[in-house]
């Protein structure tokens, strides 16, 4: 009976829970699903992290390669983030080039990297106008159950924090690059942005960390990205039903709390790796 109700009238089903201030999976409106982080899973990547947010699973691998800087920005390297939603992660995605959602997610991640300056592109320059690093940040969803943006940001940040690059010097005589794999150094992470996403139900009810079903039934989505100094790096609301300034403030407040959780998680996991070594 309940199962029939759920599939026949999904919206009413969700409303019946929201009326009682809870959600079908037992969470409160402002409660995140359990978040799990695992770093360094992929040995072929220069840095990697796997994040699980409830069922949603995101893996991020960083690959660093060498290239020439552009004429416009001779002192800067590149950061190239791409989010992929392969048909493997949900039946809603079909094979072929990235769809709108994947592209929008890629742009969102690119904007966050740019806005927060997680990594300064100047740090990636090896020889001005001659040689620089390009960091390919490839993010892939393995299980799509909503709120991939939050999971992507955690995965990206954790992967970047574990990334180690070999030392590269430019040979003065041959002006060819030389790589020394013995000497590796970590990336300089300037800021730690954390993303928190919300859905709006029936034009007014705000819920945090929506599942795939909640996302599809909601009337608007909103993502707040905040760094450790309480600066906002993004307030991304791609349309949908309108929100007042007061409601936005509620979201920002929830983000402030969440950001602490994630910072602690990343710190602790990285520390555990160090002690394990």
């Amino acid at each position: 009976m309940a199962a029939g109700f759920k599939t026949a009238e999904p919206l009413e089903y969700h409303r019946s829970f929201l009326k009682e201030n809870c959600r079908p999976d037992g969470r409160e409106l402002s409660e995140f699903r359990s978040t799990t982080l695992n770093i360094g899973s992929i040995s072929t990547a220069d840095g990697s992290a796997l994040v699980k947010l409830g069922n949603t699973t995101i893996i991020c691998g960083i690959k660093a390669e060498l290239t020439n800087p552009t004429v416009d920005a001779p002192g800067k390297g590149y950061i190239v983030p791409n989010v992929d939603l392969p048909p493997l992660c949900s039946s809603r995605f079909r094979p072929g080039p990235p769809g709108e959602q994947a592209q929008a997610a890629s742009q969102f991640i690119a904007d966050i990297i740019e806005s927060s300056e997680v990594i300064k592109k100047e740090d990636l320059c090896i020889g001005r106008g001659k040689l620089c690093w390009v960091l390919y940040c490839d993010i892939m969803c393995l299980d799509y159950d909503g709120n991939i943006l939050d999971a992507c940001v955690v995965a990206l940040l954790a992967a970047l924090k574990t990334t180690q690059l070999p030392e590269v010097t430019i040979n003065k005589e041959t002006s060819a690059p030389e790589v020394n794999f013995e000497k590796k150094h970590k990336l300089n992470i300037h800021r730690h942005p954390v993303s928190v996403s919300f859905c709006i139900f029936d034009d007014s009810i705000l819920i945090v960390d929506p599942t795939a079903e909640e996302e599809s039934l909601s009337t608007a989505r909103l993502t707040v990205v905040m760094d450790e100094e309480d600066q906002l790096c993004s307030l991304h609301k791609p349309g949908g039903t309108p929100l007042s300034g007061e409601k936005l403030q509620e979201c920002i407040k929830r983000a402030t709390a969440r950001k602490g959780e994630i910072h602690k998680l990343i710190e602790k996991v990285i520390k555990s790796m160090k002690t394990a070594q």
Partner: protein
Amino acid sequence: MKETPLSNCERDFLLRAIEEKKRLDGRQTYDYRKLKITFGTDYGCCFVDLGQTRVMAQVSCELVAPKENRPTEGILFFNIELSPMASPSFEQGRQSELSVKLNRQLERCLRNSKCIDTESLCVVSGEKVWQVRVDVHTLNNDGNLMDAASVAAITALCHFRRPDVAIQGEEVTVFSPEERDPIPLSVYHMPISVSFAFFQQGTFLLVDPCEREERVMDGLLMIAMNKHREICSIQSSGGIMLLKDQVMRCSKIASVKVSEITELISQALLNDKAARKAGGKCGFAESMPQDRITALKMDQTDVEMTNVSQTGSGVILQGDEAPPPTVPSPVVPVPGVGQVGQGLQSWGLEEEEEDDDDEEEESSGDDQVEEVTQIKLSEKDKKEAAVVEISDSEEEEVVILYPETTEKSKNSGSRSDQKGAAASKKRQKK
């Protein structure tokens, strides 16, 4: 989206009108529609209105490596974008037959006719040349897109200025317009396309067909020519057979039209130059027709700003009443893995994937088995700090294959010891 079908009534009427040398908009057989050329704010941005047909061309450039077989020549690239805005039947991102045809014709008309000095676009031979890109956007299709596009493209090329560059050793410096005046392209001549529509197997001929005329025509002849009456390209389509006389007549008409249009373009370029020199505005707001009732302009306005910051902080204060909630501490079951929040979902992948770094550290061949067990822990196992073997458990979450041919596993006695060691090591780590 589908185009509205053409009714038999329209078809019959059009053909009968053509026989009587009448056209829908009152034009004569050899009349061109009203041609209007305007420029955008940028250099190299040109709008062409041909009756109701509207196109926009924008020229841009960037420094690229030259083609291998032409190391001292710049590159010209043309693209006509058939935007769905222009017609409901144009689809986004689909290379339609029409789009291929128009792009080919534009290339033949402007690139193959060598109207632009590409050698002057070379910066460092074999290394850096300017690639000049012409994007033509169709905005409204009321027939004869080709002629409108060719006029827009050549006018935009004439209007365009590229940044000045300086070469010092290997360094190439690109100057902004503020530092050094940008440089116009050197245009040798101006090819312009003129289209002729044929009806009744070539019996009747119309210049500059509109959209409805295009839909009933039997064939099309496009002649690209410059004002020196040099034919740059000639192309017929639709499978009609034309007599030599017909083609000659068309080329004569084309030469008249081309000289008129060239004159118009030159005048438009001169006017724009004068306007820019006078420091006048040449933006879009300026080109908006003020007399139409569908258009309205509003001057710069001030926004009343009192209370804005108060409102801002008011909102923040309102939201700030409750104390911030405490941050829960994450659980770290094994190195490299952490979790916050209640475990609502059963766990899957990540335990198995974790700790490749550790593996690398430890993988020295000898403790292969230990390493394997470590990866295979599932959450439940971790909590209980128990390592499960294939043989003896009901609730095991994990299955491990021990390679039986390895020396270690052959020695079945030592195997359990090793397992035990792995397990205890696990515990220590926790």
